[in-house]
């Protein structure tokens, strides 16, 4: 076929749409070429579609490089506000003392405590709801059509972001930390509950049958046969959700619910960029340390423990032992 020199037939050969002749190997080669051509056609179509959608999105949001160019000097000026320059022993550096002074002056550490308190209380109060909805939504616990009532409830809760829950609940608790805690409580029931449900779908039948065979009642089958399989995973998800709720609490602060977010927004409105950055630094430290703690807890839970006897080791493994003792593992 390759001896054929007319451009059209060469193209046909390349695309694999020419005459189907020759040995089985030739025919297969032709077939593969055709498949490749079809694949490329679809890929090309995908690229065109994506480009069209991208164009639509950019024009809708008013994305403009000219605007960026125009505003850039102002941003650079703001940067010197965010990172106030100074010199230490003649070496230029960021004036961290300014941040520190503002942190003390505006009692930002107290504000951080408020943020943590909102997240912690919200997670703890939402946990029973999350457990209830999470377990009842599992097909293993409540048979098929009925478990959807619980699934749907959680979907509705999740469809409304925590920040909107605060707006809904303002008539109940006013604008403040109390309402933020209520919002996180509801958010946790929908969000953590869903994670629990997903985890419960993965459990094995064996232990459930094992417990059932002893003549245990339904709630014992659920707790010993099912929940025991996901106990560690549930703890890990709770830690993850606490981490998530700290970030949510900061966001809620921005719309007036107190804590670090509130202070951040006050400084933004008054164009005090240095003070704003002081808040952001604390946000990063706060969210970062909660994430670190939650990661440590989760990796503790993942590790299979071996008996350790050293004093130092006992100290290191204490958190895990405290957690495990809650499950009667001793």
């Amino acid at each position, binding site marked *: 076929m390759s001896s054929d020199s007319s451009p059209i037939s060469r193209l046909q050969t390349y695309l694999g749409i020419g005459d189907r002749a020759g040995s089985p190997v030739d025919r297969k080669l032709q077939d593969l070429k055709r498949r490749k051509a079809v694949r490329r056609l679809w890929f090309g179509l995908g690229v065109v579609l994506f480009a069209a959608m991208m164009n639509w999105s950019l024009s809708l949001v008013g994305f403009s490089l000219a605007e960026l160019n125009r505003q850039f000097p102002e941003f650079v000026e703001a940067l010197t506000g965010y990172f106030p320059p100074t010199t230490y022993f003649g070496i230029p550096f960021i004036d961290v003392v300014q941040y520190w002074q503002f942190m003390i002056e505006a009692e930002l550490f107290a504000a951080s405590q408020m943020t943590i308190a909102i997240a912690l209380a919200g997670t703890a109060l939402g946990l029973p709801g999350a457990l209830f909805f999470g377990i009842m939504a599992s097909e293993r616990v409540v048979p098929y059509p009925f478990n959807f009532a619980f699934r749907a409830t959680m979907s509705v809760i999740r469809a409304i972001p925590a920040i909107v829950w605060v707006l809904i609940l303002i008539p109940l608790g006013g604008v403040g930390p109390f309402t933020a805690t209520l919002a996180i409580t509801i958010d946790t029931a929908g969000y953590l509950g869903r994670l629990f449900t997903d985890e419960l779908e993965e459990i094995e039948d*064996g*232990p459930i*049958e*094992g*417990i*059932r*065979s*002893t*003549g*245990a*009642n339904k*709630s*014992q089958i659920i*707790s*010993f*046969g099912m929940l*025991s*399989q996901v*106990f*560690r995973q549930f703890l890990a998800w709770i830690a993850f959700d606490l981490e998530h709720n700290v970030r949510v609490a900061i966001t809620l602060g921005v719309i007036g619910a107190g804590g670090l977010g509130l202070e951040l927004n006050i400084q933004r409105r008054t164009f005090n960029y240095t003070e704003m950055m002081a808040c952001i630094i604390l946000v990063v430290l706060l969210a970062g340390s909660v994430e670190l703690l939650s990661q440590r807890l989760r990796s503790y839970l993942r590790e*299979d423990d071996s008996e350790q006897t050293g004093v130092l080791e006992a100290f290191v493994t204490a958190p895990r032992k405290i957690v495990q003792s809650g*499950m*009667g*593992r*001793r």
Partner: protein
Amino acid sequence: MSTLTIDSVTKEYGEVTALDDVSFEIDDEFVVLLGESGAGKSTLLRCINGLTEPTDGDIRLDGDSITRSNAAVGMIFQQHNLVEGLSAFANALTGSLNEWSTVRTLLQQQDEATKTRALEALETVGLLEEAHQRVSQMSGGQQQRVGIARAMVQDPTFVLADEPVASLDPSSAESVMGYLKKAADLHEVSALVSLHQVNIAAHFGERFIGLRDGELMFDATPDELTPALVDDLYGNVETVALSEERTTESTTESEAVEAPL
């Protein structure tokens, strides 16, 4: 002392007939259930335990029909089906779940006598020292022994075991079967144990029931269990070893049963 009556039990899964009109009675014996995979052994055991309901027929324990899982029938599974995150002790204790409320069992608030019973069961299977260990850290043989202990804590009148040693090495398999026999003798319960290993079956069984394609093929005493009978059950598999050894061994069998204990 109990009597299990299987009265013309049939079980169908859609088009497939897993059990076809099976009837027999067990009276204070250690019975081995033989048959190929898919012969209906597991289905029969699950029906007796109430994990599955027969399509037709009746299963009675001391005259009472079995309709759902209850503590009177203990079950030992091939994959042991323990709660892996819990200790051997906590797993043995789950055998007493039906005696206590959910809240008390969750808080491990059973009375002293029940806890002692769980430890005694673990002692019977040689795991008293390991009682605090998490099951997930134990070997397959040890896990199966915890499974035996759990079944014994139920204080059952009848014990079932579904291929309890199929996933164990020959030595563990023998010791686990030894413990199972010992526990059954100690608690004076009848047992129905399905097995793949004909050697082990011949060694421990007091009576043999053969299933093929869901039908009862034979119901034999140790003397009646001949190589020909086994060959017939498995359709002439050359490597099924119930050859000359058994006939020579059968004279010393009574001592051999005691040996691994």
